């Protein structure tokens, strides 16, 4: 998986591409930790190029979500491919994660809450 990063206001956007599994999940957790360590706690994951996610990948996302809560931050996701959306529905993680159709929608939701 490849992760590229961009900052939009107070939000760090991570663009994920490829396959989200055990190895890349660890990579994602490390990347998000670096963001938190830099003092930012609002993270958006643009998943438009995630073509595959498995059990370990889901675990990594849950772990990132829990870490975000500990940091009193906020995590949003957007652009889920059909298969990824389906797996979020089956596991009902869609009830816990804030998922937006597009990155713009997600970033707009941050603008409501940022001073």
């Amino acid at each position, binding site marked *: 998986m490849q992760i590229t990063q961009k900052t939009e206001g107070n939000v760090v956007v991570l663009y994920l591409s490829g396959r989200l599994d055990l190895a890349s999940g660890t990579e994602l957790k490390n990347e998000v930790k670096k963001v938190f360590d830099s003092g930012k706690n609002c993270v958006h994951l643009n998943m438009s190029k995630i073509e595959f996610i498995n059990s370990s990948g889901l*675990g990594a996302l849950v772990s990132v979500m829990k870490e975000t809560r500990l940091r009193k931050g906020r995590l949003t996701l957007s652009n889920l491919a059909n298969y990824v959306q389906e797996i979020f529905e089956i596991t009902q993680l869609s009830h816990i994660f804030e998922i937006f159709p597009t990155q713009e929608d997600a970033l707009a939701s941050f603008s409501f809450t940022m001073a």
Partner: protein
Amino acid sequence: MTPAVENIVSLLSQMQSPDFFAREEAVRRLGNCSGDEAVTALVFALEDPDPGIRELAADLLVKANTPTAVTQLIRCLNHEDIGARNLAAETLLKIGKDAVPALVQAIASSKDSGVLKFIAEILGKIGDERAVDGLCELLWDEHINVVCASAEALGSLRSSRAIQALVAAYDKIEDVRPVAAEALGKIGDSSSLSYLSTWISSDDPMIQYACIDAIGHIGDRSSVATLSELLRHANRSIAEAALKAIIHIAAVNRGRVNLQFDLEDFTDMLFDGIRQHNAEITDFTFRWLNHEHDTRIITKFVDVLNVVSEQDVLRVSDILTHSPQVSAQVVMEHLEHANTATKLRYLDVLKGIVDTDSARQLMSYAADPEPDVRQKIAHVLGFSGYIGAVATLKGLAGDSVDHVRSAAFAALGWLSDENEIDFLFTGLDDRMADVREAAVGALVMIGSQSVIARFTADLQHLSTDRQRLAVWGLGLIGDMEAVEPLTRAAGHHDAVVRKLAIEALSRIQVPTRMDVFRLALSDENAAVRKAAVSGVVALCGNRSASDIRPLLTDADMWVRYHVITAFGEFRDAAHGGYIAPFLDDVHDVIRIAAIKAVAMMKCTDLTPRLKAMRVDRNPDVAEAALNAVAALERGC
């Protein structure tokens, strides 16, 4: 006397009739007459005893819209009957900008203060800048009512040309001061700020309020410092007015203002504003109180959760995450006495802040009579990380309502570990598909080797449904450990299991297992063959052409369709020869697939055939051909 005038005189006489219908007919007929005499007669109808006839006359005068109509209506502003005066004013207002020159002219000629006040009010409402000079003159009228009406009208005109006249009036006429200040606010020009900031120190609270409001209305960020000084004013109303002005400035500037003061003293006012659905105060409060708070403020936020919009629930949730422990406790205290709708909102908020203590307390609400509440409780407990909630979730997994059971199984998947695998597998036998799906999802979340082993064993389960759920679960787990059982499932006796296995292996993408896909390409079941085509193409791309080519003659039309589409995606003109025969297929759907494929493959040698197909009997085929030719000619 001309016949036309005679007719009008006759109609005027008819307007004196005691019979309503006779008078109404007279007015209607006057409306159809041309000439100033008819218009003047219609003005008389404004004093008819019947309101319907008066309004009819007014409408006809608006339609007439002649200089005479305007002049007569202005004259009517002095009518002894107040109803006629008001109707004349309303009619002039409806005529609008066309009435402005005559109204301005009337300012110079009229001495009646009542008429002048009417004129000022009408000009203010019409809002035409041509009235500015006339209204400025009226600021020096001897009657204060006229002066105030003119000042107010100048505010409505929003013309900067009026600023100096209003400032001069403020200086010289004490009673016009609040109105003049308000007018400067409405004009909204920053050049007025220096005057307003000076006048704020007046001893008269009315003037102070007007200046504060006006400064807020102008919306200039530089005013925030001046207004902030008033937040400590001894008069609480003045302080709150200053804050409201600051809030408006913040709204106008989309929050881009520099605030250097503590809002804690104003929380009652702010939260009252939220309860009253004041959008500016709500936005300001959520924006500027978005940080850690004590119990008092957190309680106020939780209190308004049942009155804010769905979108603002999200904003409150975000604020509460800054003080999660305090917030969770406050929400729990509120939960007990809330109605169902409010409970659901509290639970939505609690998802983001739940901790062990609040999860423990929440368990006692698991028997709530409302299923939607029990469903959300299951989700919150699942995400709480509190392992002690497992027993409660197991109880909810036996709930009589399907979506509660479904939520409970999903939540167990987030919360529990290998110890609960046996229980989660019981969910696979639930009578409802949604619950069985949730149980699979929960097992996927755990995704351990034990789960894989249990699913693998289930491939031989007596129930076909359980076999299918097992292969589906293995596919969703998607780890390398699942590859071997999935490979075996590809040879299962049930075609659905084989198809799901092939689809899963295709997603996992294990190149070494090409043999499995090749075997599946000749499966007896068309859905399996179709899945195998996708798998081979996903794994090998263009190199799979020789593997899938034999399926171009597959007995199943949809397999052929799928293979043709796959060739198109190879985008290699060298394969055009395989696809070209399908341009003449008996099935239109195959012809369309072939047209699109040869266009994607850039088979320019087929352009003449595609051109001929643009007039096909089937409009869908013709449209596909049209698009294909266009794409080939564009070279893309």
